[in-house]
């Protein structure tokens, strides 16, 4: 890894990006491109793994056997997604002499962040429904965009993942519809879960950086790692989901929320972005419990990994 790069090579690389070519793991790439990919894909990988935790809390408490089997399958899918993405990240860190263990150490030390939504508690069954419907719904909007990303190995993994996320959304829709059509207390618990998750959903795509985009967002757009801004993704989410949320008799907890036809965009109340920064830095309501659980299972499982590794 050189820190100074040949300007001709860099120019040729950017020309490939501009032609819409896909980059492979063994292609020459600028260090900055590699770093942006590692940052994005490692974060996505550990978010899939940490994202399975709030839902797995509901496996023993699912209301019917059918729901238990379905949510178990979903949890298992999410861990599988984490593993697939971890492989993509590993191939990117390999030239830097790093492995999966280093990525997990970064997670435990807080250097590698996981998605803000997975720092939140899921106290009721309705939360499991809202996570599967709206959190996965938001995820599929980001991942749908990333299917046009310039890094081919990431896109290949995403093609599988997006297909399965489509199932997850339906699983969530089914839970939410059943509650919406149920008793007054079921409807109440669904509305309460929506209210609990609303700020996290508004933060899901990150701050609106239209006026001063971060250097990461600029680099990701330049390299066509991503093709849309945070705000474009949030607008797309609102367009798709606000009408559906309302059609279930639910009320998003934001009195200012409306579509402004003149501006062609949704107007909404900004979530507390200071809180967002605290959450992703490990100070969310469930951050420490989930990380502790993940670290504990990782440490307790070490003997099993060691036994398997000895089989070589």
């Amino acid at each position: 890894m050189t820190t100074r790069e040949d300007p001709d090579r860099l120019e040729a690389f950017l020309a490939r990006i501009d032609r819409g070519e896909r980059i492979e793991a063994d292609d020459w790439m600028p260090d900055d491109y590699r770093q942006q990919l590692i940052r994005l894909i490692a974060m996505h990988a550990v978010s899939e793994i940490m994202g399975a935790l709030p839902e797995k809390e509901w496996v023993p408490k699912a209301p019917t056997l059918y729901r238990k089997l379905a949510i178990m399958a979903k949890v298992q899918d999410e861990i599988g997604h984490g593993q697939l993405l971890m492989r993509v990240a590993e191939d990117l860190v390999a030239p830097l002499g790093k492995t999966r263990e280093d990525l997990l150490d970064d997670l435990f030390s807080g250097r590698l962040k996981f998605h803000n939504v997975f720092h939140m508690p899921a106290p009721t069954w309705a939360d499991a429904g809202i996570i599967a419907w709206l959190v996965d719904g938001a995820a599929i909007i980001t991942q749908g965009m990333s299917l046009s990303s310039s890094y081919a190995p990431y896109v290949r993994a995403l093609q599988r993942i997006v297909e399965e996320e489509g199932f997850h959304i339906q699983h969530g829709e089914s839970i939410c519809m059943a509650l919406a059509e149920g008793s007054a207390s079921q409807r109440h618990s669904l509305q309460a879960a929506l209210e609990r998750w609303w700020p996290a959903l508004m933060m899901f795509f990150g701050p609106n950086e239209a006026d001063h985009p971060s250097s990461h967002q600029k680099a990701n757009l330049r390299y066509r790692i991503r093709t849309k801004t945070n705000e474009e993704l949030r607008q797309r989410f609102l367009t798709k989901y606000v009408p559906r949320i309302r059609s279930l008799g639910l009320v998003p907890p934001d009195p200012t929320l409306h579509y402004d036809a003149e501006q062609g965009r949704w107007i909404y109340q900004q979530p507390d972005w200071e809180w967002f920064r605290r959450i992703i830095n490990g100070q969310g309501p469930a951050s420490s419990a989930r990380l502790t659980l993940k670290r504990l299972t990782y440490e307790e499982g070490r003997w099993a990994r060691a036994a398997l590794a000895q089989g070589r």
Partner: protein
Amino acid sequence: MDGERLTFDVYEVFAQTDPLGPHQHQFSLLASSPEMAMALAQENFLRRREIYSIWVVRRDQIVKSGPKERERFYRLKKSYRLTEDYRYLADKWRRYRQAPMTPETMV
């Protein structure tokens, strides 16, 4: 508990969903033996789909082309090797059906 670093091999996984279809590359995974790779391929990633056959191959056993070859492959456009060059044949057959040639007209 931290001691030596655990190392695993990368395995590439191929699967066939239908007996007449090709084995297609699916993803890669870490394992210490072909048996472990086979078990993980099924248990971690191939539960939702119907699978007919799985191949696992240690990545370092695969001979593969690299970036240089990819560039060269792009340039291999030989129209005479493609049926697209012969699309006009269908039009000709249509004309012959409407107005067949005879030994007389062929002189």
